[in-house]
Each structure stands twice: as C-alpha cells, then as structure tokens.
C-alpha cells in the first residue's frame, strides 16, 4: 500500500525522521517494502482491510507516537428511505452482497483541484474528472471503494443486483475491454443490462463531462465471491483488492459522508434523493471478555493494566472493567479481532515485541521421540555416504514417457493440474529419476557414478493412495560391485536380508534413453526395512591373540553359493571366514580362515576338515 507522507500528515502529526516512522510501522506489523521519495510502500497484511486506507495507517501512527488522529471533514447523508426504492437485490444474489447503499446527486463535472490531482498521482491514480477523482480519493482515504454512475444513462434510473447470466457480455470502463460473465459473478444492472461489476464500472454509464446527475454507491460484498470473480475475469483493480478483504459494512457510511462533503465542495453537488440502504442483516458490535493475565501467559511479559487500557483505547477499542476481567469491544473496522489471543497481539505489538525477554524453554524436557521413519532415513544417509555414494534429490513427479519406459505407470498417481503436462506422473520408483540423473552426469563425462536417493514413492490402489519411503542407488561398475554395496549396507544395518531389488538397467532401455555406459541399481523398501531393524547391532569382537591359518581351496559349485557357504561353515566351528576369490567354470577358489580363540592352530588341527572340504564329493548335493 502506497502511503504518501504529506497526505498522511493531514490525519496525524508525523515524526520528522521517516526512518523512525517506518521502523515503528514495521515493528507493529506493517513492514516497509520500499521508500520512493515522499511515498512509503507498506506490505499489506492479509487480515487488516482498515490499513487499505490512509486513515487506518494514520490511526496506527497516532497510537505508536502518542498523537491525536484528525479525521477529515464529512457531510451528513440524506435520510434513509426505508422502502429502498433505488436499490433492489434479487434473492438469488443475497449471498453475494451484504450492504449496498446509494443515492443520487446533481453535480457539476469539471477538473479536480490541483492539490487533489497531485495527491492522486503520488498514490498512483490518474485524474479523470472531479467526480471520479473524489470517489478514488475517498477510497484511498478510507479503504472503502465506491462508484458513481451517470444517472441519465441508467434505464429506469435505478439499480438492481442479480447473478449475471452465463455468457452475458459486459463492457468495462476501460475502453474496448469486454468480458463474458457467468452466473457466479454479481451483476449490478439498470432496467436493461449490466452497468457495473463488484470490481469495475461499466463503459456506458461512466461519468463524463456531460454528466449532470449521478448515482453514488458504496457496498460490501461477499469477499470470496469477489475474489473468484477477479481471478475468473482476470481483472484486478484497487477496488477489487479492497472488496476481497473482510471489510465491515459499517464502513460504507463514513466513506459516503466523506465523498458527499467533497462533492459539495468541489462539484457543487446537491442530493436529489433519499438514501437507499440495502442492509438486511446489520452486524452488531461484538465484545470479548479478556483476562489481563493472558498477556503474561502468552507473551511472557507483564504489562501494567493501565498501559493495556491505554493501548486499547488509542486503537479505538472500548474497554470496560468486569470484575478482574475486561470487557473489550473492538471498533467495527477491526474485523480481524475475534478473541482473546488477538487482543494479546494488539497489546504486545504496541507495547513492543522488543520488550519481550528471551527465556529458554523450561520444565521437564519432553522425552525424545524422533519418528523411526525419519531416523532410518538419516541412518541410510550415513551408511550410503560411508560407502562412497553421493546423495541426490530428484523430482517426485517424472516425465510420463519415462514412467512408461520403466513400466512405472501402472498403478501410478497422476497430477490433475501439472505445470508441465509432460511431467505429471508421481514416481512409483526412484530408479527412473536416478537413471536420468546418472545420464546427465555421464554426459558431463563423470564416468564413476555412485548416487543414492532416499525419498517417497507413490502408488494408487483402486481409489486409495499410498506413499512408501524407498532407498535407491545407482552406479557404474558391475553387478557384483553393487551387490557388494547392498551386502555391506545389510551388515551395517544388522539385517540379514534387506530384500534388495538388484538389477542392471535394461540394455534395450538404456539404448533408448541414450545411456551408453552400463548402470546397475538397487532399490529397497525402507518402510519394510523398518520392521526388521534390530534395536542394536554389534559390529565388534575381540580378535584371537593366536594367528589364524588361511588357505585357499578349490571346490565345485552346485546349487547356490549361500548353501555352499553354510555347508562349509557347518564342517567346523574353527572356520571363521570364507572369502570368495574367483570362479572358473563351476570351480570356485575360496579362501578359508581357521581360527581358534584358545590356541595356535597347527596343520594337524585342521587337516581333517581340509580333507572333507577338498573331497570331490563334498558338495555334490
């Protein structure tokens, strides 16, 4: 929100130093975005529509600098005609508008005074004529948008509000811009057609130099509906931004009163009708019972009761004592104040967040309860980096064609609204993404690839969606290398079988993907791993002080290697280690380590076992 300081100073005395002003405003919740000469630009707070008007900003300044707020001059409006002849609201539109207030005036259209033209320019709106300029000027002052129609252009000289018809066209006040409406847009019509929307006026009934009589309105609409209209029609105006916020309907009257004053003064205006005020459900002021001790309980700081009352009064909150508590009634324009915690914030932000002390959390520390699903991922990161692998993060959504090529499209979940329609498949495996990543590295001439990723994959089962944590790793080299990595990982984790999926990237697929170096990968279901994870793994033992006997044997392999190893181990408890050396045809060379804790082994001690092992019939199952 642009705030021209010379204009702001109409309503409150400003400190001489702009920085001390903007620092204070920032501290109390209106952060300075940038300063441009006389204009400061404050970041909008989503819940403070009152700050979309300069008077709202002035009120905050007055509070923090202990100044008086000077409200601008106004002129009382004509009496209200309870028949509301000028404004009719269709029942179907009653959820779209909360208040719509209008009356008609004779005016003399002409140029605005110079000072007003300059002020509007400093804020960022061009001058049109005195009538239109005054509606803009008052919106900037009060935050309440308003609109003036050329009354003679309104068929039937009255306004009716209804949902637009689907496909109904509307020409906006901006030359040449025509939009097509839907039944979700509120249309403000004369007896014939749409003359205005919530967010922009119409071309036909705009106020021109030939206008002699106007209809002036100010309204409060359904904010969500305004927001959706603005998105749907792709129109954003200073008015639409304000109507999207939670404005209080009570704001309509002071804004019209101010406009009436200025129109009389600068456009010789005279009212020609009573006030038509459609406001079927007037909002009553809400009061909140407030315990002053809440300030200490939430803020951690004691604020004297007199200071609390003074702060709230300066923000125009009404405060009455009610026993030990306070009965607090916020002003209508503070639609953000709903309960006790909101009042604590009001008190503290003005008292100063910088006054709050810094006190460490106390009491008994809650028991450490890091989620196992997180802990295992950290453990895997540790182990995989130990094994020389670099961690990468690839996208959770992958190219649809790639998913298909990897056969990962079967039970995959698809995004409904992907920013890139080609990338809409949620991954069911980490391997396609890792392969793409590896390919990129190969293309950069990194030929020694060791990558891993820990992350979620996503599946759909009928109408159910599931997500699973997986570990994937990919490397150049050969299949026994990557199997070795998986084996060592299993040892580190203390799990005998981690159920890895071990594979070479299918050469045909690799060829299609233009990957020329063989890639090998492993994928492990981490959620399953978690079920088998021992609480404790012992990687250590005391070495026997006696030297081992190490010798190589040749042995025929029939059946699996694992069976063979188990069979060899069963021959003697002295066999402490079996190392695979090489394979030639069906013949394996194995290095056997015999070791005894209690004595030095001699050749005789192991001769009988050796004989069993080298017997050609040993491993003929």
């Amino acid at each position, binding site marked *: 929100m642009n705030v021209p300081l010379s204009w702001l100073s109409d309503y409150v005395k400003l400190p001489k130093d702009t920085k001390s002003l903007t620092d204070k405003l920032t*501290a*109390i*919740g209106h952060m300075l975005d*940038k300063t441009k000469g006389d204009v400061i630009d404050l970041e909008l*707070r989503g*819940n403070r529509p009152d700050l979309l008007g300069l008077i709202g900003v002035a009120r905050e300044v007055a509070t923090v600098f202990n100044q008086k707020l000077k409200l601008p001059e106004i002129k009382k409006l004509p009496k209200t005609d309870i028949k509301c002849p000028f404004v009719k609201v269709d029942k179907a539109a009653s959820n779209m508008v909360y208040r719509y207030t209008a009356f008609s005036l004779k005016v003399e259209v002409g140029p605005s005074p110079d000072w007003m033209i300059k002020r509007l320019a400093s804020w960022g709106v061009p001058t049109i004529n005195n009538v239109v300029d005054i509606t803009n000027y008052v919106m900037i002052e009060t935050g309440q948008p308003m609109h003036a129609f050329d009354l003679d252009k309104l068929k039937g000289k009255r306004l009716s509000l209804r949902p637009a018809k689907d496909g109904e066209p509307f020409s906006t006040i901006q030359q040449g811009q025509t939009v097509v409406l839907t039944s979700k847009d509120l249309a403000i019509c004369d007896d014939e057609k749409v003359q205005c929307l919530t967010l922009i006026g119409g071309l036909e009934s705009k106020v021109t130099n030939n206008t002699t009589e106007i209809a002036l309105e100010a309204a409060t609409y359904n*904010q969500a509906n305004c*927001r959706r209209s603005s998105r749907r029609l792709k129109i954003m105006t200073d008015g639409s931004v304000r109507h999207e*916020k939670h404005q209080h309907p009570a704001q309509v009257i002071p804004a019209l009163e101010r406009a009436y004053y200025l129109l009389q003064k600068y456009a010789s205006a005279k009212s020609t009708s009573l006030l038509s005020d459609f406001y079927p459900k007037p909002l009553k002021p809400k009061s909140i019972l407030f315990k002053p001790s809440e300030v200490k*309980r*939430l*803020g*951690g700081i004691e604020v004297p009761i007199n200071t609390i009352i003074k702060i709230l009064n300066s923000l125009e909150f009404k405060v009455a004592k009610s026993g030990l508590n306070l009965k607090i009634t916020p002003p209508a324009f503070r639609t953000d104040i709903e*309960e006790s*915690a909101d009042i604590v*914030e009001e008190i*503290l932000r003005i008292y100063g*967040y910088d006054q*709050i002390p*810094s*006190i*460490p*959390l*106390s009491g*008994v*520390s*809650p028991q450490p*309860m890091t*989620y196992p699903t997180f*802990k295992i991922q*950290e453990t895997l*990161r540790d182990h*995989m*980096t130990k094994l*020389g692998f*670099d*961690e*990468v993060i690839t*996208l*959770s959504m992958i190219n649809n064609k790639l998913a298909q090529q990897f056969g990962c499209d079967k039970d995959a*979940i698809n*995004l*409904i*609204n992907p920013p*890139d329609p080609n990338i809409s498949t949620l991954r069911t495996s980490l391997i396609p993404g890792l392969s*793409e990543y590896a390919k*990129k*590295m190969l293309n950069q001439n990194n030929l020694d690839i*060791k990558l891993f990723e820990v992350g*979620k994959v*996503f599946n759909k089962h009928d109408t159910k*969606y599931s*997500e699973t944590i997986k570990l994937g790793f990919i490397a150049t080299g050969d299949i026994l290398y990557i199997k070795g990595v998986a084996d060592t990982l299993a040892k580190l984790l203390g799990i005998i079988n981690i159920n890895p999926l071990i594979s070479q990237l299918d050469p045909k697929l690799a060829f299609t993907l233009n990957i020329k170096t063989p890639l090998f990968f492993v994928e492990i279901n981490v959620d399953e791993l978690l079920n088998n994870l021992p609480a404790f793994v012992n990687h250590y033992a005391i070495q026997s002080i006696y030297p081992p006997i*190490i*010798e*190589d*044997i*040749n042995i025929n392999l029939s059946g699996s290697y694992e069976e063979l190893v188990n069979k060899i181990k069963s021959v003697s408890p002295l066999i402490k280690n079996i190392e695979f050396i090489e394979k*030639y045809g069906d013949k394996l060379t194995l290095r056997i380590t015999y070791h005894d804790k209690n004595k030095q082994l001699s050749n005789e001690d192991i001769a009988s076992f050796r004989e069993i092992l*080298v017997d050609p019939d040993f491993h003929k199952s």
Partner: protein
Amino acid sequence: MKNKLINIKNEALAMIMGASDTSELERLRINYLGKNGSLTQIAKDFKDLSSEEKADIGRIFSEAKSAIENALDEIKFNTRKVSENIDQTLPGKPVRVGLMHPISAVAREMNDIFRYLGFSVADGPEIEDDEFNYNRLNLPKDHPARDLQDSLYIKEPDILLRTHTSSLEAHILATHKPPFRFVFPGKSYRYENVSASNHMIFFQYEGIAVGENITMANLKSTLETFIHMFFGPERKSRFRCKYYPQVEPGVGVDIDCQFCQQKGCSVCKNRGWVEMLGAGMIHPNMFRMVGIDPAKYSGFAWGMGLDRITMSRYKLNDIRALFNGNLEYKI
C-alpha cells in the same frame, strides 16, 4: 597333485607374511620360484597328465605362482621406505567420499541444534487432504490465504500434494499429548512454473513446542539460540509483528543483512534486515480443532525456507540445480 600345489601356495604365503627381512624374502623367492624351486619342480611332472587334467592343474599352478609373486611384490613394496623414490610434493591419490545432499546436510545441522534444545524430529505424508493441508491450519474454505497457495491436485477438490510442511503440524497436534517439541524438515509442492528462483518442489523447516506456560519469551530464546548457533554468535535478529493464520500473536523474524552490514542493499531491499522466518503462538483454533484446551496449554511454532537457507549457505543461486544433476560435489 592339486593338493600338493595348494599346499605349496599356502605354505609359501604364510612364510612370506612371516619373513622379517629382505634377504629372507629373496631366499623364499628362490625356494619357490627359482630354477630348482618347489613350484618349478612340480611343473616338470605335468607331462604325465591327461590333457583334461593338464588344463585343470595348469590353472591352479598359474594361480599359485601369481599369488606367490604378488605376495612377494607387495611385501617388498610395503617394506620400502616411503621417502626412497617418491616425490612427496606430488599430490596424494584422490580419495572419493560420499556427500549428503546440501538440503539434508543443512537439515541435519538444524536438527542437531534443536535436539540440543529438547526437540525431536518428525516426518509425515506428502499426499494430504483438504482437512490437514488447510482446515486444521485455520484456513477454512474461502480463506484468502488459500489463494496464495496454488496447489498440485491429485483428486479435486480435496486430495493434493501438501503445500507446506505445516500439515505435519496438524498431524502432530492430533496425535501427541502435550508437552511435546518437534521439528520437521520436509518437501512441499506448489503449482509453480520452474525457474532459477522458483520450483514446484521446495523444502521447508518447521518446528512446534506445546505445553503449559510456554510464552513468546520462550519462542524468542529458542529462535535466537538457533540463529546464533546456525548463522554465528555475532548475528543480530529482530522480532516484529506479522500475520499468519496459524498463529496469534504472530511474529516475523529478520536477521541482519550480511551483504551490506545493514547499510542497505538490493538483497535486503535497503531494509538492512533479511526476512528469515515466520513464527508465533499457536492459534487457539488449532488447539480447539484437536481438543486441546487453549486456556490451559500454549505453544509456539515457526517455519522457514530450508531450500533458501541451503542455497545461501552453499552459495547456490539456482534452485533447479538442487534436483537436476547440475550440482557439483566437490570431494
């Protein structure tokens, strides 16, 4: 003969391992591999073998021979003095290590700090429904803040990829009894066209502490301690009022701009301060929704951009490089 060969090999290897000086090694070489050495002798009997046996025995023979040769070479190399022939001004042989992803590395640094402050680490689902992603975070339907978060939908209108890690805050509130303290780094998703500064995947780091008598003074201490431990003890921070639907009172935390020493520059938009995180006291509505009494319990929560902090920590100025293979791991 096969056994004999293997025995010779095993015996030789054991002797070589046990040798105490180079002259003994030389003697062993002659003993096994010399003209009259035991291996050479045994080879002379090969002529009596059948051709099938020859192939088998021959393989074992050459394996034994090379094993003995290798063992001798290795021992020799190991006993040679390092300084003898090597120019030590040459670079060492590069050792390849594995590194964590920078996001994981920063998350771990942060977790370590918060663990020290009594927090545990949580994680949770990335597919969310409207209830946990919005409603439970005090963002009912038609709340204006929902518009700022263009979601990636799986099934409209209510199944989506979480747009912030705050959804986990809702899960934690729903499943744990106070007191508790959690931090949670995690992936989030938004409808975003990918550029150097924005991505449809981004990372957040959030935290929450709930109990009795938890105040903004505790919030201040916790976050100041974090800032000093993570960014450096000399760093300054400021706490200002800020609006977030999940908290009341709300807090914005800035740290001093390092690029200009607070003199004002383009990084800090001439403010001298850089926005670092959003925080505040957990909104009573968030407690009510899970049946925690907001008059008895209080708590604070905060959130920050893990990817932004990672990028500035490691001077990576393109968010895409975090995911697309353009990241260099320097060791």
